[in-house]
């Protein structure tokens, strides 16, 4: 038996060595095996043999290797595909066939495994945990304004996401892309689907402002679940979108939303600390409160490029300074093409300058309060009757849409550019599990302009042009208007 094993092991050696010394080596093995009987001698024999194999097999091949290197230098191949063999002779037909079958098998096993990545969920979770650190996380930041203006205990999705994009360093984006690449292959299973559906139902019942609508929606979801509507959905984002669509279809409330987050959602929204507030303040100061450009264009047209509506408790003076410096302009262009939203109080603060009497500014986030009217006129402001243009793009979002929508509906501004992205972020965010959450409005907002707002549809511009051409178009419109006067 052991002789047969050793005979097989001899095949590890190159063929020329086997031919020359195979028989001798077998003979030596037989001699030793004959002389060294008993458990320990045999054990020692095999240890010797294995050590010998480990040392001498690579050495034998290394001799051949150096020979091959020499040979390939001597015979350059004319661009023909070729491969080296460790053996000194051509491979046998059987060996080529076996090698072919083996490579095909491993290739197909690899591709099959590649398409069934469901087992690797822990990797995604671990990776997401590593990346979702501290204040960079969505909904990890709760602004003092949100607390002050009665936004409630929970974070608004919109402001948190906007702050995220305002604060997130570029490296985080790269990391997110990486995670997305990993996570894109992850798939939803029945257990998580059920957990999410039941989480949605529980939250709706508890938090939605209209009990009857909530109950009707819950019944519909349960019916959908029973009829197996969700069984085939394995993509997380598609699942969130499907739930959102169904919630809205039944409730006719466009502010209900189910969200999926690749990063793990934190268990609790971290408390606002003086340190995090200081960090936010410093970041905002460094960015000039996201007032990217404040200048006077030819024909005395004021131009304000604002990429975020920051918290007034931090940025009021910057905003006031910017608006004051544009006070003598004959027209004003607000460039919101890169604006991702922000705080409603800043939307109001800027709008204050554009009216000579208080105007109601619709806010999808809740019932009207005293804060829903502009504090117009602003003493000393000369902008109340000047033509206003708002530049929009497909990425103009949330708070920036509130600004655009109200000015458009009040016929106070001409919107130039693209239809906006369409997000109100009106709901209070509720966590369902590590990756799913939902937004639920807790009060009925009153929209004096129309039944629906921009949720899911965006704000249509008055003058539709590509975002890149919006400034030039708005300038021309303003010049023409000023010229007429």
């Amino acid at each position, binding site marked *: 038996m052991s002789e047969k094993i050793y005979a097989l092991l001899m095949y590890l050696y190159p063929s020329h060595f086997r031919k020359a010394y195979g028989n*001798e080596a077998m*003979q030596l093995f037989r001699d030793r095996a004959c002389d060294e009987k008993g458990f320990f001698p045999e054990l020692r024999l095999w240890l010797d043999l294995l050590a010998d194999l480990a040392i001498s097999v690579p050495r*034998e091949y290394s001799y051949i290797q150096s020979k091959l290197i020499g040979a390939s230098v001597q015979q350059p191949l004319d661009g023909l595909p070729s491969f080296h063999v460790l053996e000194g002779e051509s491979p046998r037909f059987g060996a080529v066939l076996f090698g072919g079958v083996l490579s095909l098998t491993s290739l197909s096993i690899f591709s099959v495994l590649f398409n069934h990545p469901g087992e690797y969920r822990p990797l995604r979770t671990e990776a997401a945990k590593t990346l979702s650190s501290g204040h960079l996380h969505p909904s990890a930041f709760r602004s003092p304004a949100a607390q002050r203006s009665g936004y409630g205990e929970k974070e608004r999705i919109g402001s948190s996401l906007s702050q995220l994009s305002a604060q997130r360093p570029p490296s985080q984006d790269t990391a997110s892309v990486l995670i997305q690449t990993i996570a894109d292959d992850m798939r939803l299973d029945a257990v998580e689907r059920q957990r999410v559906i039941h989480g949605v139902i529980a939250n709706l019942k508890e938090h939605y402002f209209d009990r009857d609508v909530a109950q009707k929606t819950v019944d519909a979801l349960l019916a959908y679940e029973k009829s197996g509507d969700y069984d085939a959905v394995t993509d997380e984002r598609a699942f969130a979108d499907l739930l959102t669509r169904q919630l809205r279809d039944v409730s006719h409330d466009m502010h209900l939303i189910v969200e999926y987050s690749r990063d793990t959602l934190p268990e609790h929204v971290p408390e606002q600390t003086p340190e995090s507030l200081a960090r936010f303040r410093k970041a905002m100061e460094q960015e000039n409160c996201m007032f990217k450009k404040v200048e006077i264009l030819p024909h005395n047209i004021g131009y304000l490029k604002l990429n975020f509506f920051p918290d007034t408790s931090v940025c009021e003076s910057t905003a006031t300074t910017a608006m004051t410096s544009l006070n003598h302009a004959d027209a004003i262009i607000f460039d919101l093409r890169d604006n991702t939203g922000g705080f409603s109080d800043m939307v109001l603060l800027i709008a204050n300058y554009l009216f000579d009497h208080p105007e109601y500014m619709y806010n999808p986030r809740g019932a009207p309060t005293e804060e829903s009217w502009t504090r117009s006129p602003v003493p000393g402001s000369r902008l109340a009757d000047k033509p206003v243009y708002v530049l929009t793009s497909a990425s103009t979002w949330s708070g920036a849409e509130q600004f655009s929508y109200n000015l458009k509906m009040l016929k106070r501004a001409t919107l130039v550019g693209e239809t906006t992205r369409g997000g109100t972020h009106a709901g209070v965010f509720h966590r369902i599990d590590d990756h799913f959450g939902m937004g639920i409005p807790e009060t009925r907002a009153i929209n004096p302009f129309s039944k629906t707002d921009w949720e899911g549809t965006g704000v249509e511009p008055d003058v539709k042009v590509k975002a890149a051409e919006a400034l030039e178009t708005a300038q021309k419109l303003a010049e023409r208007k000023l010229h007429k006067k």
Partner: protein
Amino acid sequence: MPKRKLDPLPSVAFQILLSLANDDLHGYGIMRQVADQTGDRMRLGPGTLYSSIQALLEERLIEEVDRSENAEPGHERRRYYRLTSAGRKLARSEAERLADTLRVARARKILRGDYV
């Protein structure tokens, strides 16, 4: 095939040369002799043994001896190896080199004992 390097002489090759100093031996004989002369510290496996034998043959430090007349019936013919004069010379010079090394070691008080 490039020559296997025997410069410096590996200790396995040196032990094989020494084992053949008195008698012509076959592979297993060499293995036993080497084990004896090293106090069982060096037990040569077939791969190492024949790889070294091949190198020594290529360098003509040992040669094969035809001892077919000694073949016992029923047994395979065994190849015996004999030290050549070049092999003997190399073994001697290697031994002297080692002796020199030993003297240095003694002089540096690494090894205690009599002068070799």
